[in-house]
C-alpha cells in the first residue's frame, strides 16, 4: 500500500489507502528514514526508525520526534495511470516547515511583559512556541533557558559526543528572528509569583506573563561519595560537557557510573576512542529495569565484544585524585579502577526546586502534576516534558513521568493548543530509541511493572523483538533489527487496542517477517 516513486529530481511516497491515492515526501524530516519501510494505518504513516507520524492526506506531522512536516504532492488518476505533480524544490528538500505567524504587537511592548513565557528551551519549549505560531498566535512569545545555546538535539549529546552546538541546533538562529520567538539564554528563574503572574529571575529581573509554560526538564544526579567534587567528573547535560569528556577521554581511561541509556551510549561512543572504558552498575545487567534481564545481557555481550569492561552489582565508594585531577575510582567491591575521566549517569531529578513556594502542585518526587491538557492546578500555567507527571491513556490514565525526547515534543504541542483553548487531550504512545555501536534498540509503550517478557528472534544475533507484559497484556515492545515491528505495535496501541500475551506470535507473524524464516530456527524464545 506504500511505494517509493522516482520523479527525476527526487522521490515521492505513493500511498493507496481505502481506495484513494496520496503522495507525500518519502524521507522522514527527523533523520531521513525511508518512510516506505514504515507502518501505514488509518490515514497516517509512522516512521520505522523513531516513530514520527505523518498524515498521508496533508503530510502534517502528528507525532514526534522532528519539527517539520512532509511536503504533499498532487495525485491525479487518468486512464488507469497515476500522475504525481510536485515542485522541484519540495522534491529536493523533502521537508515542509508549517506556516507560522509572526508577532504583530512588537512595537508597543513593555520589555518586561510578555504574553507567553516559556521556561526551558528544550524540545517541549520549542515545540510549544512553534505550535503557537503555527496556530496563528501573533503576540509576544519569550523563551528563557539556563543553557548557553538555542534549542539543540539533546539525544545527540551521548551518541555524537563531539558535536558542537551549531551542528546540532534544532533551528538556525535566523528562524527565531523570522518568527519572533525570543530566546533569552543564561537566564535562570528563581521563583514564580502565580498570583501576580510574574517570573522572578536570579539576577533580579522580573517578567510579567499571561500564559506560562514550565518545561525545565531534569537535573542529572551526581555521586554522593568522597571526592565527587573533583575535576574531570562529569554529568552530560550540555554540548560542552560532551565535548570536554571526549577530549579528556581520548586514549585515556574512562569510568562510567550507571548502565542505563546515558552510560551505555557514552560507553559505546568512547569505546573506540579511549584507552579503556569501564562501566559500574548496581544491577547485574545493564538496562535491567527497562529492557529486562535477557535483553540486557545480550546488549552487555555486545559491549564486552567491543572491549568495554563491566563491574556489576557494585557502586563507587570513593574517587581518588593526584595533583587535583581524578586518578582512581574505588568500588565498594574493593576493586580500584584507573580513571582519567568519570562520567556519571545515575538518573536525574526534575528541575522544579524553584517552584517549591509557588503554589503549583508538585508531587513527592518533584514532578509537576498536569492533566491531559498539560494544565497545572493554576489557571494559565502549563507544564511539559521531563519535569512533568501526566495521565497516560495507554495505562488507564495512570499518572506517569516519561522523560524522553518524543514525549517532550508532544507535551509542548498539547500545551500550546490548550493555551489557545483548543481543549485537545494528549493521546499518544511513548516511543524512544537508544543507539550504540551503530545499532538501535527501539521501544514503544510504557513497560513499568512488567512481569514477563516474550522474546522472538535471536538475542545472540541481536535480531529480536521483546514484548513486555503485565498480567495478560502487552504494555511495551522493544526490538533490534526487527523493523518495523515497534512502529507496528505502536500503531496498534495508539488505536486503543489491547494485545494479549497469547497474540504476540500472531502480531509478529503478521507484521512483516513472513518471508524471513530465520526466527523459526533461531534460539529466541
Amino acid at each position, binding site marked *: 500500500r506504500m511505494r517509493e516513486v522516482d520523479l527525476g529530481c527526487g522521490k515521492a511516497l505513493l500511498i493507496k489507502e*481505502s481506495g484513494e491515492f496520496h503522495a507525500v515526501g518519502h524521507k522522514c524530516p527527523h*533523520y531521513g528514514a525511508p518512510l516506505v519501510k514504515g507502518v501505514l494505518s488509518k490515514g497516517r504513516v509512522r516512521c520505522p526508525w523513531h516513530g514520527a507520524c505523518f498524515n498521508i492526506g496533508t503530510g502534517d506531522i502528528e507525532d514526534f520526534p522532528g519539527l517539520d512536516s512532509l511536503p504533499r504532492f498532487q495525485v491525479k488518476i487518468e486512464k488507469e495511470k497515476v500522475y504525481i505533480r510536485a515542485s522541484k524544490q519540495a522534491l529536493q528538500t523533502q521537508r515542509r516547515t508549517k506556516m507560522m505567524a509572526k508577532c504583530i504587537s512588537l512595537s508597543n511592548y513593555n520589555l518586561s511583559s510578555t504574553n507567553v513565557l516559556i521556561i526551558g528551551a528544550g524540545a517541549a519549549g520549542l515545540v510549544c512556541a512553534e505550535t503557537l505560531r503555527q496556530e496563528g498566535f501573533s503576540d509576544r512569545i519569550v523563551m528563557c533557558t539556563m543553557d548557553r545555546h538555542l534549542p539543540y538535539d539533546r539525544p545527540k549529546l551521548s551518541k555524537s559526543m*563531539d558535536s558542537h552546538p551549531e551542528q546540532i541546533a534544532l533551528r538556525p538562529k535566523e*528562524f527565531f528572528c523570522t518568527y519572533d520567538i525570543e530566546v533569552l539564554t543564561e537566564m535562570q528563574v528563581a521563583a514564580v509569583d502565580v498570583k501576580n503572574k510574574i517570573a522572578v529571575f536570579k539576577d533580579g529581573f522580573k517578567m510579567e506573563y499571561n500564559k506560562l509554560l514550565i518545561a525545565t526538564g531534569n537535573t542529572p544526579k551526581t555521586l554522593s561519595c568522597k571526592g565527587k567534587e573533583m575535576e574531570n567528573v562529569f554529568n552530560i547535560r550540555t554540548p560542552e560537557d560532551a565535548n570536554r569528556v571526549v577530549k579528556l577521554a581520548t586514549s585515556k581511561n574512562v569510568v562510567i557510573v550507571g548502565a542505563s541509556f546515558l552510560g551505555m551510549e557514552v560507553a559505546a561512543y568512547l569505546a573506540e576512542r579511549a584507552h579503556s572504558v569501564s562501566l559500574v552498575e548496581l544491577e547485574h545487567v545493564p538496562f535491567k529495569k527497562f529492557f529486562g534481564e535477557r535483553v540486557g545481557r545480550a546488549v552487555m555481550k555486545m559491549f564486552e565484544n567491543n572491549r568495554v569492561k563491566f563491574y556489576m552489582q557494585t557502586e563507587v565508594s570513593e574517587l581518588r585524585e593526584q595533583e587535583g585531577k581524578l586518578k582512581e575510582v574505588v568500588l565498594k567491591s574493593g576493586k580500584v579502577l584507573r580513571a582519567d575521566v568519570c562520567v556519571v549517569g545515575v538518573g536525574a531529578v526534575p528541575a522544579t526546586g524553584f517552584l517549591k513556594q509557588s503554589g503549583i502542585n508538585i508531587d513527592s518526587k518533584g514532578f509537576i502534576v498536569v492533566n491531559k491538557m498539560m494544565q497545572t492546578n493554576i489557571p494559565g500555567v502549563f507544564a511539559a516534558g521531563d519535569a512533568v507527571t501526566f495521565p497516560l491513556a495507554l495505562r488507564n490514565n495512570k499518572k506517569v513521568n516519561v522523560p524522553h525526547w518524543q514525549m517532550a515534543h508532544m507535551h509542548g504541542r498539547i500545551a500550546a493548543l490548550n493555551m489557545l483553548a483548543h481543549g485537545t487531550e494528549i493521546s499518544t504512545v511513548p516511543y524512544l530509541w537508544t543507539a550504540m555501536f*551503530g545499532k538501535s534498540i527501539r521501544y514503544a509503550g510504557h513497560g513499568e511493572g512488567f512481569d514477563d517478557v516474550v522474546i522472538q528472534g535471536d538475542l545472540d544475533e541481536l535480531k529480536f523483538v521483546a514484548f513486555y507484559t503485565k498480567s495478560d497484556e502487552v504494555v511495551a515492545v522493544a526490538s533490534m533489527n526487527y523493523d518495523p515491528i515497534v512502529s507496528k505495535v505502536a500503531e496498534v496501541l495508539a488505536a486503543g487496542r489491547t494485545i494479549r500475551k497469547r497474540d504476540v506470535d500472531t502480531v509478529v507473524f503478521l507484521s*512483516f517477517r513472513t518471508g524471513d524464516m530465520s526466527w*523459526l530456527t533461531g534460539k529466541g524464545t
Partner: protein
Amino acid sequence: GKDRIIFATKEDHETPSSAELVADDPDDPYEEQGLILPNGDINWNCPCLGGMASGPCGEQFKSAFSCFHYSSEEIKGSDCVDQFRAMQECMQKYPDLYPQEDENDEKSSKDLEAASMEASAAKEEEGSS
C-alpha cells in the same frame, strides 16, 4: 535473501485496520469480528491479514498461517517450514504484489541510520534551512 511483505494493493472496501486481532468479547454478537472467530476458526476476511489470504498466493498463505496458528512447538511455527517456503516461493513470483527486500537494501538502510546518528549527516538532512 530476506523477504519483506507489504499488503497487496487491491481494492479494500472494508475499513483497513491492522489493529483488529482478536475480538475482545467472543460472546458479544455486536463485536466486530477479529482474527479468531467465536468458534475458534481463523477469520480469513480479517482486515489485519491485509488481503494476504486472497490473491495469487492466498492458498499458500492460508496453509502457512494455519500451520503457524495451530503449531504447539516451542518455537511456534518451526514445524511449518515447508509451508512458509512454498508461500515465499509463490510471493517471489509476484514482486509487484509482494515487494521483496534484499540484503543490500537492508544493510544500506542500517548504514544510513548509523550515519544519521553523527551530527554531520543530520545537518545535511536539515539542508540550508
